[in-house]
């Protein structure tokens, strides 16, 4: 009995099991937590972080770092709204937002891979530059959406579940597949695990890194669109600090900052843990200042638990 339990806890999916136990605990202890409405609200609240975490996982797995995601999300949202307003076509707006995201990501990738500038500095710089453009484009004020159809992106439902959640689920699926089953995914892990060996094995390291950042940009574009639709405007100040939430969700989910290690299930768990913590704290009406402390303690506990698990496993 205990042996089997041990085996489950220490297995590949141990993090998921721990998460399920924690989830059951929260459901039992926090009133109003396990209601349909709250679950949907919870999921919607993690859409932005979750979407961006998909590609941040690749970025970290390849031993890179992206601080510019928050700015790109805000900028893409602005572009979506402004382009839709200007052209009258929502589709054009969406496409231009994604194109802008991809462009910024591509620039990040080229600078980092080709000019060999530290990823932290590069993305810190683009983070500022892009935020600056967003502010300049809008003169620092939110831009309203002309066509109400735009709101529908976030409000519409399929089988009772809002579209953004579907988008999130689909992206989780796609990137989980890409990570484990495609050449691109394996190359990413290889680059993070041993860049030199990957290069010598003929992996086109530069191109892979550029692709990773470009994808990151595309995904930020999608997140920006959904966010703009959800908050019914393009806001130049949106998503400040997003990068830290996303990176911590990933690390919480077992992605190694030293590169080479990542799983989609881990990242999903990481994203959900962060979302549940926020949600439960608000349901429990914990005062704002104490929320800081609780948030910190949960972060620590989650990683500590996972460490204990894997050290029991690796015995080192």
């Amino acid at each position, binding site marked *: 009995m205990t042996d089997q339990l041990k085996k489950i806890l220490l297995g590949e999916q141990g993090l998921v099991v721990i998460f399920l136990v924690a989830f059951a605990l929260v459901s039992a202890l926090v009133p109003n937590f396990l209601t349909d409405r709250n679950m949907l609200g919870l999921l919607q609240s993690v859409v932005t972080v979750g979407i961006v975490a998909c590609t941040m996982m690749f970025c970290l797995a390849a031993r890179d770092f992206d601080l510019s995601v928050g700015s790109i999300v805000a900028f893409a949202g602005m572009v979506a709204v402004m382009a839709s307003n200007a052209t009258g076509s929502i589709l054009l707006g969406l496409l231009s937002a994604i194109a802008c995201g991809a462009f910024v990501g591509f620039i990040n990738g080229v600078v980092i891979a080709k000019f060999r500038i530290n990823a932290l500095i590069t993305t810190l710089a683009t983070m500022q530059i892009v935020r600056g453009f967003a502010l300049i484009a809008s003169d620092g004020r939110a831009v309203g959406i002309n066509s109400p159809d735009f709101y529908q992106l976030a409000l519409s439902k399929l089988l009772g579940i809002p579209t953004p959640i579907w988008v999130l689920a689909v992206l989780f699926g796609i990137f989980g597949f890409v990570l484990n089953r495609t050449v691109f995914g394996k190359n990413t892990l290889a680059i993070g695990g*041993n860049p030199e060996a990957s290069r010598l094995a003929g992996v086109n390291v530069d191109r892979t890194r550029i692709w990773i950042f470009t994808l990151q940009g595309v995904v930020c574009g999608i997140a920006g669109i959904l966010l703009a639709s959800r908050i019914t405007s393009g806001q130049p100040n949106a998503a400040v600090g997003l990068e830290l939430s996303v990176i911590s969700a990933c690390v919480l989910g077992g992605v190694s900052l030293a590169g080479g290690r990542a799983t989609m299930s881990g990242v999903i768990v990481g994203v959900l843990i962060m979302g549940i913590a926020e949600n439960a704290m608000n349901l429990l009406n914990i005062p704002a200042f104490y929320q800081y402390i609780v948030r910190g303690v949960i972060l620590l506990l989650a990683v500590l638990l996972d460490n204990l698990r894997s050290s029991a496993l690796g015995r080192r």
Partner: protein
Amino acid sequence: MSFLDFSQITKTYPGVKALSDVSFGVVKGAVHGLMGENGAGKSTLIKILSGDQHADEGEISIDGKVQAYASTRDAFDNGVIVIHQELQLVPELTVAENLSLGRFPASAGIIAGRRMLEDVGAKLKSAGIDIDMRRKVKTLSIGERQMVEIAKAIMLDARVIALDEPTSSLSSRESEILFALIDRLRGEGKVIIYVSHRLDEVFRLCDSLTVLRDGKLAAHHASLKDVTRDQVVAEMVGREISDIWGFRPRKAGDVRLKVEALSGAKLRTPASFEARAGEIVGFFGLIGAGRSELMRLVFGADPRTGGAVTVDGKGIHATDPHGAIRAGIVLCSEDRKHDGIIQGRSIEENINISSRRHHTRFGVLNRASEIATAETFIKKLKVRTPSRNQDIINLSGGNQQKVILGRWLSEQGVRVLIVDEPTRGIDVGAKSEIYELLYQLAEDGMAIVVVSSELPEVMGICDRILVMCGGRINAELTRDQFAEKAILAAALPDKKTPDAIAS
């Protein structure tokens, strides 16, 4: 008519002329040896062949066509495969994935997982390499990793295969698998460049030989028929070395190191042995015999689960290397890349990291003594470098090994010196000087434990040999009992004793 031609290759690194005007050719279906002292430029030549580095001058041609590679990828595509001196594997990926990296069987970017396993499985089987290809590389021992690295050579249909010191961490059994493989490839008409410091191997395998010295071509033998070993050594080192072991009888004193029933997570069978002052004890075994694990336990590098270690009758309770060093035990570990060199830091710092505590006051360094120590050991061990400030990562493999040895030889107050594969990648000339240093330390009363996979080495320098197999000490032989057969027999897994690792 030579198939692979190097012509007038020249390569300069800041402060170092690694190669100057090197030209030679190799015919098809031949194994060509490449020898030379540490830092002579062998790896550099191989790196240029692989497209990893670019020659400042000169060119390489294959089958009469001049090759110009922009990247290692181009080299593959032209049928050139290189097994580098330093292991180039991705620890988090499986063996199969590592062997397919850069050329996964895939359609539309999606990996055909089954095909990959089939391909790799077939190749490994045909080469006689027995490793579970689903294991992650990080769970393999160094020797096993080296075999995976070697397996890369057969993954592609290559025209030219270069192997840079492939046997430096292999024991004789695995080496035989490699040699069989090389013979097969030769039969298929490939050109094989073989870099090694082991003369036996070179004479057993190679058809022709080039010797480099200080980046220049010192000798080229189109055939090895009339060449003697002493002649090659002289070409390499510039002087004759009659007996590289130079064994001198010593008198053993009292027991210095006593290990009783020591066990740990990776060494389940408790092991006991002792070493006396002035004695050199050898540990021999095949890959995975558990020698390195045992030494790491003695040194406190891994947590022990039972047993005791005493030095000069005093129990060592240290659970970390820090404590062990202060108690007089030092270990020079086998994996120099992971456990030895501190990349990004200078030779001087790499040498002084441990011994400097004898010279500091209130934690402030004594620059003069650090410089003196560094200079002394650079000279003693013949480290080839433009200056002691050179980043250790820029040294050739053998020179890095010398620096790490220097780190431990410069320690003071050592009672027990454990060296794990000390001469891995070190040239013949330097080897005999290192042995000489070991003898002197032993004569001064140190107990020395030498772990080695090279049978001639342990037989050549040790007073006593312990043979390990499957995580336990299987036999103990004193110098008068030394016999190749007996030692190998003890090292081979015994079918009668249940043995997890062997199965």
